[in-house]
C-alpha cells in the first residue's frame, strides 16, 4: 500500500488542526473548552510525529506519540481536578473571573 498522499498534506493538516486549537485557546473563555483545544493541539502534534515516522521509516516518531499520549492523559486529569477545585471556590470556570494572580 504505497502512500500516494505526500507527507506535506499530513503536515498541513497537522498545522491546520494546531492553529484551530491555538485559536480556540485564545478565543474561548470556558476553561473546559480551553483544555479541549489544548488536547486538540497535542493531537495535531501527534499526527505530524506519526507522519514523519511513516515517511522516515523510523519508530522513534511513534514512541514519541506514545509519550505524548501519557503526558496528555495526566495533564487532562490534573487540569480537570484543578478545575473542579476552582469551581468549588469561585463557582465558575470562566477564566475572566479568576484573576487573583493580578500583579
Amino acid at each position, binding site marked *: *500500500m504505497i*502512500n*500516494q*498522499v505526500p*507527507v*506535506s*498534506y499530513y503536515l*498541513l*493538516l497537522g*498545522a*491546520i*488542526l*494546531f*492553529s*484551530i486549537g*491555538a*485559536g480556540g485557546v*485564545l*478565543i*474561548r*473563555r*470556558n476553561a*473546559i*473548552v480551553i483544555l*479541549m*483545544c489544548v488536547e*486538540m493541539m497535542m*493531537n495535531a502534534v501527534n*499526527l505530524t510525529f*506519526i507522519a*514523519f*515516522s*511513516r515517511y*522516515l*521509516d*523510523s519508530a*522513534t516518531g*511513534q*514512541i514519541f*506519540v*506514545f509519550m505524548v499520549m*501519557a*503526558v*496528555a*492523559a*495526566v495533564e*487532562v*486529569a*490534573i487540569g*480537570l*481536578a484543578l*478545575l*473542579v*477545585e476552582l*469551581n*468549588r471556590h469561585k463557582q*465558575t*470556570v*470562566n477564566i*475572566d473571573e479568576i484573576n487573583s494572580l493580578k500583579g
Partner: protein
Amino acid sequence: MEQTLFLLIAAISVIAALGVVFNRNVVHSALSLLVNFCALAVLYFMLNAQFLGIAQILVYAGAIVVLFLFVVMLLGAELGEKVTSWLTVQNGVMAVLAVILLTVIGTAVFESVIQGARGDFTPEAVQQYGQVQLVASALFTDYVLPFQLVAVLLSVGVIGVIWLAQRHQQSSARREFHD
C-alpha cells in the same frame, strides 16, 4: 483512492475541530472533539501506525473525552460564558493571529524538504515482523528509560488527582465545622 479518503477524513477532522471551538454548548464541543479524535485515529491507521490508532481511540476518545463529559456533567453544562456572538474584535484578532501561525508553519512545511535519519521501520519490515512487535522492540531497548519515567509520571498524576479531590472533601468537611 487513498488520497480522496485522506481528504475526506481531513475535512471531517477540521470541521470537528471548528465545532469544538465554536460550539456554545460545552457538551456539543466535547462530542465534536470525540469525532476529531476518531478521525485522527483513522489517519493513524493510514499512516501505518495501527497500535497508536488503537491507543488513540482507547486513550483519547475513550478516556479523555469521557473524563471531559464527566466533569461537564459534574459542574453543570451551562456554566460556560454566555457567548452572544463570535464576531467581537478580540476574537477577530485572535483568529487573525491563528491564521498567521498557520501560514508561517504552512510555508515552512512546503519549502523545506524533510530529511532525517532513515530508520529501518520500512513497511516491508512491518509486514515481516508486525507493527506492534517493531514498536515494542524500539520502545524496550533504546527508550526504556523514558518508558520508566512515563510510568512515574502517571503514578504521580494519579496521586495528585486523588490528593486534590481528597483535599476537596476535607475542606468542605472543615467548612461545615466552621460555618
